[in-house]
């Protein structure tokens, strides 16, 4: 990757082609942004707001949002969003009309954000006033339109941390009410009680959960460490005292019922033989507990993070339970999942449009992240101040504090912007992630509700902190989930079968 550069574009005849080329290249998603500064003799603070507007922030909020009204925070917010959106190239139109202090600010921004900066001068020469400023910064000058077009070409996008995972299925607006039964009966009850169309809608989500459960477990080191490479096949593992006829019956029963080659543990369970698992490493016998609770919490919350319907969330969770069970894992979740609180059940699905709205209406990165975290957690987080900068994962894929929860891909830039903004404000890794305009107390539930309303959203019902007997995050369903190894896997742990769970 090329190091960030400063390029002065001389549009000597003020040809509209240069301007149109820069404006047409503006695509935040492709990493290219064009700033079109407001005309008039405006100060550098206005240029920072032009930057925020170019980043897609609401113009009214940019001038009124608390925490970034002053010039310095506005520039830092601009840099933070630029980094969070992975913008690589920034073009500034009509730069020849900007004064020396504007150029100094832009060069400082270029250094902070690590972007290529194209300064368009629609004039014969670089303004004399800024020559001294430019002398201190390595730069090149071009007046070649073809070269400018090349510079504004989007770079190939770098894949995100989990872009190779299958996209979750869309959830229909009118999703049926799913059975309130446990995993063992869920799918059968859905088949019995729902119409064909409704069942199919539910089953799409169920199978997605099943696949996701298999995939997550298959690549988890704890699982790989605890299981043999291949499933143990039944024939040679059937209890020795069974007659050949009984063995054949047991095998046929398992095959017909489950459509799989049964493992020893299933056979023994079906025949109520109750054999102990042979000692293997540190795990002598079934059942024993899954240790990576935080990982499990992140998986479960990620599974339903984009679900706009709690009913669909329930279907996915039941599917995940089934998927894990195929691997000999028993996942226990709160009994009445539908009335529980937490990700996918309460709050809002952090989809691309929802996150765009948050980013647009809340230009202060801290405010945007506070709302996104509250919605992702799905429970009141009265104590948002407990979150540290280090609580956010490297790619903002999860937040780990008093329990962990996933951040959907669309919401990650919001958290990355907040983290960068706080770092640019001089905060250390152990420093607070979310500090409101008046300190941590600025992030009160009332403010969050107001912010959510500005974005056309609503936050989970807030409970006053003093009246809440438990630390707030513990209320979320996925933090109560527990998992045990209970049996050998019924199929290979490495690669989940793409057709697994599909009804013929």
């Amino acid at each position, binding site marked *: 990757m090329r190091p960030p550069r400063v390029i002065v574009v001389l549009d000597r*005849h*003020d*040809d*509209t*082609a240069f*301007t*149109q080329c820069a*404006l*047409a290249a*503006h695509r935040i998603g492709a990493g290219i942004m064009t700033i*079109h500064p*407001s*005309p*008039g003799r*405006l100060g550098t603070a*206005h240029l920072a*707001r*032009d930057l925020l*507007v170019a980043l897609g922030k609401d*113009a*009214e909020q*940019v*001038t009124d949002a608390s925490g970034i009204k002053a010039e310095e925070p506005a520039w830092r917010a601009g840099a933070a969003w630029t980094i969070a959106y992975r913008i690589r190239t920034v073009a500034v*139109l*009509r730069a020849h*009309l900007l004064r020396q202090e504007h150029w100094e600010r832009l060069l400082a921004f270029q250094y902070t954000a690590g972007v290529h900066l194209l300064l368009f001068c*629609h004039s014969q020469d670089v303004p004399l006033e800024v020559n001294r400023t430019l002398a201190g910064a390595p730069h090149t000058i071009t007046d070649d339109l073809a070269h400018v077009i090349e510079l504004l070409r989007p770079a190939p996008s770098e894949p995100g941390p989990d872009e190779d995972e299958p996209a979750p299925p869309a959830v229909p607006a009118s999703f049926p009410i799913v059975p309130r039964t446990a995993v063992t009966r869920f799918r059968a009850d859905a088949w019995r009680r729902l119409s064909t169309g409704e069942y199919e809608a539910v089953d799409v989500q169920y199978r997605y959960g099943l696949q996701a459960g298999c995939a997550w477990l298959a690549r988890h080191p704890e699982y790989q460490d605890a299981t043999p490479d291949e499933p143990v096949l039944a024939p040679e593992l059937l209890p020795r005292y069974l007659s050949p006829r009984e063995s054949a019956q047991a095998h046929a029963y398992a095959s017909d019922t489950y459509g799989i080659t049964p493992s020893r543990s299933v056979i023994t369970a079906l025949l109520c033989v109750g054999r102990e698992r042979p000692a293997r490493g540190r795990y002598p016998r079934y059942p024993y507990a899954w240790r990576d609770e935080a990982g499990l919490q992140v998986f479960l919350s990620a599974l339903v993070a984009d679900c706009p319907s709690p009913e669909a969330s329930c279907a996915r969770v039941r599917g995940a339970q089934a998927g894990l069970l195929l691997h000999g894992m028993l996942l226990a979740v709160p009994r009445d999942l539908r009335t529980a609180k937490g990700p996918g059940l309460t709050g809002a699905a952090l989809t691309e449009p929802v996150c765009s709205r948050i980013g647009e209406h809340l230009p202060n990165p801290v405010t945007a992240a506070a709302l996104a975290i509250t919605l992702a957690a799905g429970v009141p987080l009265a104590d948002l101040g407990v979150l540290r900068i280090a609580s956010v994962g490297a790619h903002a894929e999860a937040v780990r504090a008093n329990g962990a929860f996933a951040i959907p891909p669309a919401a990650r830039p919001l958290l990355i912007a907040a983290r960068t903004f706080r770092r640019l404000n001089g905060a250390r890794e152990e420093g607070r992630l979310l500090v409101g305009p008046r300190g941590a107390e600025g992030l009160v539930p009332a403010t969050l509700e107001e912010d959510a309303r500005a974005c056309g959203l609503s936050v989970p019902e807030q409970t006053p902190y003093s009246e809440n007997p438990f630390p707030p995050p513990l209320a979320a369903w996925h933090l109560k989930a527990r998992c045990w190894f209970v049996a050998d896997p019924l199929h290979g742990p490495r690669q989940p079968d793409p057709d697994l769970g599909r009804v013929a």
Partner: protein
Amino acid sequence: MSLPNDDHYLKLKGACIVGTEAFEETQDTLADVLEVQAMMCVFGDAGLGKTLSVVSSLRNLAPENSFRVQYRSRPTTLDIRNELHALLGIGAPPPRHPIHFDALLKRALSETFRVFVCDEAQWLTREAFEYWRFLWDDVRTEMAVVFVGGGNCYDVLNNEPMLSSRVYAWQEYRMLTSSQVLKAIPDFHPVWKEADKDDIHWVDDNAAHGNFRRWAKITRHVCQGLERNGETEVTRKLLQWVFSRIAGRAK
């Protein structure tokens, strides 16, 4: 309709729009300008019918979407913002911050295609041109701009490099020649319909000088004189009386 229907100088009753060559050229060029959403500049001395031609052409071409922008001399960016805010009928009060104001205007200008006629463009400052260019350049806005100006309008606009690459068409208005006057004036107002050609030529030669605005002023005085005297025909005596009123001198 967004354009006021008082095109003629002194709101002269009975006056008709005459299809001169310049008028027809304006109409044709404007049709092209609107099609490509471009900028156009119409320039020439005062009173030659530039604004009237542009406005009446737009009344045919884009009756609902045309707006005439008139400024006091040397308008600032804020003047233009406020004028556009009023013209576009944006319900909300004008925002205090320029950036918010600009975003609001751009949003309104991206809703539907509009044509703006900037009259007296020779008074526009570089800052004002910058502002029009700022709005027009935006990829979301849908607008055409027609700069109309007298005197040194051409020099002012031609000195702005930003306009030279953006103005799609230039049109200069010149005073009518004698033959054009003889062809156009009888159609301009009923009082000249039956007038002697020598009289028309005499008026143009001595007072109107191929200028529609002067012709409008003279016509209004003629109408008043006819009404006052209870006459129906334009006579040389009446014209001499008119000349005395407008301080023209008969040869």
